[in-house]
């Protein structure tokens, strides 16, 4: 490939300075004339019938402009795929934290005061919190009748499975089978079989910006919405459907997003905010507190994962049966798909000819689960990679050796039959092992553990971008996709600058509202560098073609004799025409700025994936159980790295999120309620908790993004919990089957182990 000028440079985030200087105005910062503040009264019960609601005293409070209950709203359920969630609870509450009454007032304090004057009488109903229990015949039903709930068809970009929506199993939202090969024949070939079950609690995305919404209704009924949502066009469609109006009656305006990690894809408070604005006749803003976020956000699905694996006499995997049970909480509304699609990773990046994966999403009376960075994958990979080590241990094999015998290599079909080009799985694992000094001697109580994962670049939904050039030749790229902090604007800026051979800073990137930008699915699923990148390439191509025609006319040369080169046009006579000169000449003659829109739809399915191998090195204090993560090596099979700075930011940010998932983060649910409802009690890792981090990039040239790039956003967070748990076992011989790996759990397990070995010694003597 020719050497690149802008692409490949460590360019800082284009929007970075405005964020770090406090100039960025997030949704929560928006002020409008007459703005009111909305707050919701939430259910204290996990499952109860609403007997009565008395809002009279709240309505009587000075400064209160609207008080609404579910019964006053149209009976229209909302959601991203399944439409199963009422805007405010109607008749029944199904989780602690469910919105019951909404208030809009002149200040947040008045709104809070009004909430204290609302009396709700509840009658408690039997509740179920565990997804496996919820599937039993005698379990309480979270939803008495799901027959009226609607949903669109299952989209075709997801891995094809046998999809059963609302099957005849108590509380089950979806049951999906992914199969390849012949599972029974596979187990028949097995010399040994292993079955293990793992449990993963819910975790919160931990973004800094809590969900916020602002709604302003214009006199003609047009609705302006500002919302912490990374997919504005999708949000517009869902919002319009929730209101029962046409999409063009809604404009989703832009505001920076203060962190997403998968959690900013829903309408959250948007619809209730609209109803408050409609009732009050004034614009309304709602900002969730972090307590509300932890109590009633849309955390990662908790899961119970059972894996059964057959291995032949040579330590090669011949069959894998997985049963994955995810609790989706009280509503399924917060996920964009019918199932948890990370489930396809239940076989891992290993060669196994016979696979059957059965996935359940199950209603429980707990906080509704949503999407989080690589949805489903960290839960499953914790199981898969712990299971790999457990098998290796039983077989008397080194965990690295066992994996090397089974990793996919060039030419292999993936476990569910996908045919990947340029498989770099083994190379990535070997690179990680080399960097982490696998096999090197360790001091006492030190251990190393491996975790592996693979993920293909996001390739769904159309993307588009509009590149415009103004009279003064300034270039502006407008995208409809939000930059959630990943650096997507910067990547797009680099693509334009590269293609036009102009300095980076001469290209502005802006996000357009849904009224001004071309339609775009938005951020999510590791898709933007690929999809928006290709759409931007297409826009640049159109601009070049359009301007070449104008230049040819101006230079009185046939188009085919004019070429674009670094900010100017040159014809075969050696005549030069600088872009500013051309644009000045066009002023007055053409409608400026000139706009060129590029569109892109991916070819399906993807023919490449990316592998990730991670090795954790821990030290365990046997007297306390404390696990100190000393070093984390993360190796990635990458395509062309378009921006090493933002790429590394994704690698490191993800790895640290994985460290939190491994060691400290979990929503502690008691009697159905999240109890650690402050960031003082829900422990996100801080800068002081970061181990030595080593990144190894295994370069490949097969990516679908511009310049053969791949995706990196949802890779490094996934396998860390498994790597840490495996390292703890290597260090002190204690195996944890549930997350997080806390000191107390390790301590307790160590004491049990000591007690067991004492008993055995006594038995032997």
């Amino acid at each position: 490939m020719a050497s690149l000028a802008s692409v490949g440079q460590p360019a800082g985030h284009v929007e970075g300075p405005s964020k770090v200087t406090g100039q960025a105005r997030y949704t929560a910062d928006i002020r409008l004339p007459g703005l009111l503040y909305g707050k919701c009264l939430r259910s204290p019960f996990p499952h109860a019938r609403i007997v009565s609601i008395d809002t009279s005293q709240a309505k009587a409070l000075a400064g209160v402009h609207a008080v609404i209950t579910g019964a006053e709203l149209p009976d229209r359920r909302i959601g991203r795929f399944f439409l199963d969630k009422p805007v405010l609870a109607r008749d029944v509450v199904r989780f602690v934290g469910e919105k019951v009454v909404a208030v809009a007032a002149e200040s947040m304090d008045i709104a809070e005061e009004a909430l204290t004057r609302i009396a709700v009488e509840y009658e408690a109903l039997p509740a179920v919190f565990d997804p496996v229990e919820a599937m039993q015949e005698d379990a309480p039903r979270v939803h008495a009748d799901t027959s009226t709930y609607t949903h669109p068809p299952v989209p075709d970009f997801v891995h094809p499975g046998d999809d059963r929506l609302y099957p005849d199993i108590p509380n089950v939202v979806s049951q999906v089978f992914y199969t390849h090969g012949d599972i029974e024949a596979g187990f028949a070939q097995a010399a040994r079989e292993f079955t293990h079950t793992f449990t993963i609690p819910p975790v919160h995305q931990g973004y800094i910006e809590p969900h916020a919404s602002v709604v302003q209704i214009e006199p003609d009924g047009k609705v302006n919405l500002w919302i912490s949502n990374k997919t504005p066009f999708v949000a517009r469609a869902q919002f319009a459907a929730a209101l029962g109006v046409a999409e063009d009656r809604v404009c989703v305006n832009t505001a920076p997003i203060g962190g997403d990690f998968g959690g900013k894809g829903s309408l959250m408070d948007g619809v209730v905010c609209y109803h408050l604005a409609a009732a009050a006749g004034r614009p309304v803003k709602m900002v969730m507190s972090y307590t509300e976020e932890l109590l009633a956000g849309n955390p990662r699905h908790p899961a119970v994962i059972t894996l059964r694996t057959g291995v032949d006499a040579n330590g090669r995997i011949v069959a894998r049966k997985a049963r994955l049970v995810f609790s989706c909480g009280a509503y399924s509304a917060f996920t964009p798909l019918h199932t948890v699609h990370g489930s396809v990773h239940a076989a891992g990046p290993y060669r196994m000819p016979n696979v059957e994966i059965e996935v359940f999403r199950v209603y429980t009376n707990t906080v509704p689960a949503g999407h989080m960075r690589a949805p489903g994958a960290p839960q499953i990979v914790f199981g898969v990679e712990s299971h790999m080590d457990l098998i290796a241990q039983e077989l008397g094999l080194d965990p690295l050796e066992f994996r090397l015998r089974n990793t996919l290599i060039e030419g292999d079909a993936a476990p569910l039959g996908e045919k990947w080009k340029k498989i770099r799985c083994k190379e990535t694992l070997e690179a990680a092992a080399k960097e982490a000094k696998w096999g090197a001697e360790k001091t006492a109580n030190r251990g190393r553990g491996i975790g592996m994962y693979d993920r293909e670049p996001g390739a769904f939904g159309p993307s588009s971008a509009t590149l415009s050039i103004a009279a003064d030749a300034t270039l502006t790229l407008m995208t409809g996709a939000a930059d959630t902090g990943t650096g997507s604007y910067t990547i797009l800026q680099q693509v334009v600058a590269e293609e036009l051979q102009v300095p980076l800073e001469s290209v502005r990137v802006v996000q357009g509202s849904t009224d001004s930008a071309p339609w775009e699915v938005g951020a999510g699923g590791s898709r933007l560098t690929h999809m928006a990148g290709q759409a931007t390439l297409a826009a640049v191509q159109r601009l070049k073609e359009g301007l070449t025609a104008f230049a040819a006319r101006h230079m009185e040369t046939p188009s085919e004799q004019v070429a674009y080169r670094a900010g100017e046009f040159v014809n075969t006579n050696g005549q030069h025409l600088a872009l500013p000169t051309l644009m000045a000449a066009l002023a007055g003659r053409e409608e400026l700025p000139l706009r060129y829109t590029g569109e892109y739809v991916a070819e399906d399915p993807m023919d490449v994936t990316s592998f990730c191998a991670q090795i954790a090195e821990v030290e365990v204090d046997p007297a306390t159980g404390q696990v100190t993560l000393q070093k984390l090596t993360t190796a990635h099979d990458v395509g062309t790295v378009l921006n090493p700075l933002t790429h590394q930011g994704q690698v490191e940010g993800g790895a640290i999120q994985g460290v939190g998932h491994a060691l400290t983060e979990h929503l502690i649910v008691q009697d159905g309620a999240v109890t650690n409802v402050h960031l003082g009690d829900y422990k996100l890792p801080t800068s002081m908790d970061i181990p030595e981090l080593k990144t190894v990039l295994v370069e490949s040239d097969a990516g679908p993004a511009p310049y053969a790039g791949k995706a990196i956003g949802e890779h490094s967070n996934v396998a860390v919990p498994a790597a840490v748990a495996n390292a703890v076992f290597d260090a002190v011989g204690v195996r944890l089957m549930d997350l997080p790996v806390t000191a107390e759990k390790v301590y307790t397990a160590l004491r049990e182990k000591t007690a067991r070995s004492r008993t055995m010694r006594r038995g032997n003597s």
Partner: protein
Amino acid sequence: MNFEHSCTVPVARETLWNFLIDVPQMAICVPGVSEVVATGEDQYAGRMKITFGPIRLTLQGELSIQELDQINWRAVGRAEANDRRVGGGVHISAELTLVEQEEAQTQLSIQTEARLMGKLGEFGQPVIRKKADRIVAEFARNVAKHFKE
């Protein structure tokens, strides 16, 4: 949140039973409780003050007797109380069981289930649990003390 307490009261079972089902009298043994009045059959209203450090709660609420089963010496009561200023409250269900130990010696067992509502649920749950646990323990002690004196 669930709590279990028991204490031994130096009095015959029937005497203790009669004392406990006289709600205004019994309620005085709950630390911080005042102004308990009957509002209907087996229905009472009252107030309870709880302080910990700078936090001072005044819970105004209602108490009702759900079950009086003298055959098994078992009583179940339910209370709902709110602090309107704070915007939170508690729902409590308590089951009292009396077991005769010797002639003038009865064991009182209290099983309590409490649910925190609103803002109260946002304060550190472990500390509230400890506080609630202490209140029930002190109630048991006060009942015992009532008959010792």
